[in-house]
């Protein structure tokens, strides 16, 4: 396990190499460094994992590297910390990350910023690894901000287009709001507990604070704020759909598989704080459920294939938050992992489709592609099946676990019902995606040349297998870390049957609505009310509209108004007054004898009046 430090170091080296060579390397070499460094990191993770498994799932390994800061008790160390939870994350990041990098070597071929792209991607992998391997909340925050930066850089990768820059800035600033809340949470934890070391914080928290104390609730909620921002949950979710401006592999890696799930990881990592605070747990449920619904409905009406997937990601992370809230910690992490598989698969397949159609993203201009693009079709099919949680796909196991766990929670039947309803919508939009893109009437999109190459096909195949079979991994290592002791499939009986049947129902309904009766569906939704609803959902429930009026526009308008800096006014006024006085005095000095004399006489008269008046 001593090789742990190699895992984050390799991507960092890749980044540095690509940086200093300034894009002068040939593309082959760039691809080898870019994808290779992540692959090597995955290889380096293998012996670590073997060691870990030998020592049992409860193993904890900390590798101190150096003292970062040490001032008067504020002493965060740069220490890598490996336990079951971070190990699972490491595999998601390096494994899925490597596949996506590999795919990207083909997808991005010929781009002038090829080297820059892989530099950013490697930096991202490094930051993400730091995030999950951090032993200290401040180090975690380093990774946390680092992935945010890379997300910004990669969303705005095609920076010639101002809209991309806007989307990138939006992503960064909106998540920064959450990050700032999280930072405040860290300040609070440090003030109360005197440390930011995660394990010390957790153990100190449980001994210091009674259940439901205000302080722990506030701390948990502030940290939740960070998680909500990074994971695109209500109310900080607006950046994610726009983030699709980035290249598709970026969407797959950052905005589906890894970064956006960091919030889930964070909450799972500091679960003791949430266990101490029922209110924070309820907040998790509330945020999760609300986002789940909101995003699922929004996904149902999008036309842009990537936006569908973006809203779907949002909604699936909502599931994870929901799971965390109901205490199904392991199920949440399990879903995080399976989601990484199938959502990466969906994005990469979508990328192949988009590339084949020369950057067409409107699903209604696709249609009938299943014959022309068999591999992306297969990938998308598998991915959508897992997303809809059709039985025996990976998504089925994780989602089932969440739903059944929710039923076991207090007030659970309602929660279960709500989540199941959302699962129905999920299945519905998954079906819509498949039927419209691959079976709909052939669209107007361009010719049939399949733009993919082997570098892109390989990852699709591997990810398809993972998305299908990933559910059989079970999830022993994280379970040892989390309080619920693993994914339970308890609570059999009718609930289990219904839960399993809901996706099938959704898909069936989708088949009818979007394939069999699609004309009738079209007629049905052409009414004014339905159209209004469609537009409302398509705009993501109007949050962008609302925030623009509530925050963005007043902020910008006021800033514009104050561009000259109102604080300067008194100083400028003082200067102006002095200038006027100076002008007056200077004008009196005009060289006219009679003017002087008159002034003298007037002054004398004035003096006389004063003197006589006083006398």
């Amino acid at each position, binding site marked *: 396990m001593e090789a742990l430090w190699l895992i984050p170091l390799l991507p960092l080296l890749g980044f540095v190499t690509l*940086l200093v060579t*300034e*894009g002068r390397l040939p593309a082959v070499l760039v691809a080898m460094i870019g994808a290779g460094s992540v692959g090597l990191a995955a290889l380096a993770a293998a012996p670590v994992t073997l060691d870990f498994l030998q020592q049992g799932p409860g193993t904890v390994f900390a590798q101190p590297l*150096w*003292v*970062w*800061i*040490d*001032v*008067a*008790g*504020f002493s965060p160390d*740069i220490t890598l910390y490996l336990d079951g939870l971070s190990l699972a994350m490491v595999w998601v990041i390096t494994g899925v990350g490597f596949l996506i990098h590999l795919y990207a070597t083909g997808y991005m071929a010929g781009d002038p910023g090829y080297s820059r792209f892989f530099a950013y991607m490697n930096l991202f992998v490094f930051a993400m690894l730091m995030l999950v391997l951090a032993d200290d909340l*401040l180090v975690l*925050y*380093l990774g*946390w*901000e*680092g992935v945010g*930066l890379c997300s*910004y*850089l990669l969303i*705005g990768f095609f*920076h*010639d*287009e*101002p809209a991309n*820059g*806007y989307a*990138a*800035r939006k992503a*960064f*600033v909106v998540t*920064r*709001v959450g*990050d*700032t809340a999280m*930072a*405040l949470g*860290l*300040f*609070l934890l*440090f*003030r109360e507990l005197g440390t930011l070391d995660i394990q010390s914080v957790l153990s100190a928290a449980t001994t210091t604070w009674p259940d439901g104390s205000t302080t722990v609730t506030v701390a948990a909620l502030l940290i939740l704020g960070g998680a909500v921002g990074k994971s695109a949950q209500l109310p900080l979710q607006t950046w994610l759909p726009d983030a699709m401006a980035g290249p598709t592999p970026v969407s797959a890696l950052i905005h589906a598989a890894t970064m956006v799930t960091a919030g889930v990881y964070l909450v799972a990592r500091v679960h003791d704080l949430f266990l101490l605070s029922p209110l924070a747990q309820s907040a998790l449920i509330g945020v999760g459920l609300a986002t789940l619904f909101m995003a699922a409905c929004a996904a149902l009406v999008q036309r842009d294939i990537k936006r569908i997937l973006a809203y779907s990601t949002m909604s699936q992370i909502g599931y994870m938050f929901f799971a965390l809230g109901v205490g199904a910690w392991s199920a949440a992490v399990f879903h995080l992992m399976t989601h990484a598989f199938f959502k990466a698969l969906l994005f990469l397949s979508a990328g192949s489709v988009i590339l084949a159609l020369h950057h067409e993203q409107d699903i209604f201009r696709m249609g009938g592609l299943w014959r022309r693009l068999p591999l992306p079709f297969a990938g998308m099919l598998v991915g959508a099946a897992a997303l809809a949680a059709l039985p025996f796909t990976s998504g089925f196991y994780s989602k089932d676990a969440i739903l059944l766990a929710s039923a076991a929670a207090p007030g659970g039947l309602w929660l279960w019902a709500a989540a199941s309803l959302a699962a129905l919508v999920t299945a519905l939009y998954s079906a819509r995606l498949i039927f419209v893109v691959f079976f709909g009437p052939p669209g107007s999109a361009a010719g049939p040349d399949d733009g993919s190459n082997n570098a892109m096909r390989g990852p699709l195949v591997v990810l398809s297998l993972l998305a299908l079979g990933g559910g059989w991994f079970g999830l022993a290592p994280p379970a040892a870390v989390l309080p619920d002791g693993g994914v339970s499939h308890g609570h059999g009986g009718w609930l289990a049957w219904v839960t399993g049947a809901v996706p099938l129902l959704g898909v069936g309904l989708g088949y009818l609505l979007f394939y069999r009766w699609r004309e009738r569906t079209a007629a049905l939704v052409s009414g004014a009310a339905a159209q209004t609803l469609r537009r409302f959902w398509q705009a993501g429930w109007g949050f962008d509209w609302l925030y623009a009026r509530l925050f963005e526009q007043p902020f910008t308008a006021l*800033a*514009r108004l*104050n*561009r000259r*800096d109102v*604080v*300067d006014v008194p*100083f400028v006024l003082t200067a102006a007054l002095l200038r006027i006085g100076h002008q007056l005095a200077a004008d009196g000095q005009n060289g006219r004898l009679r003017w002087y004399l008159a002034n003298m006489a007037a002054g004398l008269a004035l003096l006389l009046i004063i003197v006589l008046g006083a006398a």
Partner: protein
Amino acid sequence: MLLWLIAVLAGGGVLAWLSERMGAAWPQRVALLVLAVAAVCTAMLWIGGADAAGLYALTDLPWIPRFGIGLVLALDGLSLLLVALTVLLGAVAVISSWTEISQRHGLFQLNLLMTLAGVVGVFTALDLFAFFVFWEVMLVPMYLLIAIWGHEERGYASMKFFLFTQISGLLLLVAIIALVLHHQSASGVLTFDYRILLGAAAGVPAWIMLGFLAAFLTKLPGVPLHTWLPDAHTQAPTAGSVILAGIMLKTGAYGLIRFVVPLFPEASLELRYPIMLLGAVSVVYGAYVAFAQDDFKRLVAYSSISHMGFVLLGVFAWNQVAVQGAVVQMVAHGFSTAALFMMAGALQERLHTRDLARMGGLWGRAPRMGAVTLFFVVASLGMPGLGNFVGEFMVLVGAFQVNVELTVLAALGLVVAAAYALLLMQRSFQGSPGGSAQGGSAPLQDFGAREMAVMLVLAAALVWLGVYPQPLLDLSGPVLEGLGTGRGALP
């Protein structure tokens, strides 16, 4: 030794001036050489190690004994750190003026080095009178730098700079004399020696502290005394901006740490929250006004106000973590802002404008400059792993222990910082190349080896500060401890 250091800088300035007769390129070379010598001096002092009292060097000469004035120069860890920063950024400033200055090279370098000499004096003087003298010494050459080699509105800007500094300097002088007289009436000893005044300042009227505060707050600058800075920065030549932002603002912060709180602990405690409020307001307001600027340099200038607000907040939180954070922030801000001003200067040299509305899409035309700007912009918005983050975070951690509301307010500045910093990046280097009026999409002369070398040094310094600031903290830590920044030590 310290006197020599100052003499080297001042004398070297004269030498650089005279060397102009040998050719226009000579003053720069001489100045660089002088700074190299100064750097060697500093390094020797550093290596020489500190004595038992934590001093690396001490000069104690009588000057005007009748009034108790001595030439007391002392170098402790904090001073050493700032002197090293001064010398390093001085060299950066000289290099950045390599191609920009087109007239009176000798006089330019003279003023530059004189400013540095004054700054080094300020950072080392332990006699209030000597401190004041150095305080004024650094002002005049800076005024000349702006007034002679500045841009379009240099007259207005330099005069504004001069008046703000001069008036606040006057208040400082009055306060110094009042303090000394107060001490004399209390103890019968007339002295300007900081070391003696330090212990015996109980019962000093609070208004005396306000005089010090006014001077340092103006220099820092803190809202609402900041308005000279955007004008001065915008109009100053690149080297002037580098020195102004990188070093001179730090004299204000240094004054707060060295003089205001230790000399006036009671008054500082009394005014703690109002001043911390000013700090937090500076953070947010500076960032917010920066967001609206169209002028590259003006934007960076306002961002400086925001960054120095953290320093103000940290100093008056006055616990070890916060003040150490303030020190890190001072140094890190010196590096990041110097680099951004150099970038603004480089762009102006190439595009003949600082107007962001006329830039855009420059990345494709000068990728190195783009990457460098990106790095420093990101540093400026407080990315972990780079120096500014360490400073800001420590300040906030420390301040949070003192006052929650003000910390929350200042933390909002982090969000606004992201907004202005990324907008700067967008408007200059990203976006469509068609938007730039200057020369369409023709390649721009990108950074060469000289400029890249400077930028890499600054970038490396920021990374070092970001991932391993401990050596720096160890250097300044004992000093701050000695000044009484133990946790909650502000009585």
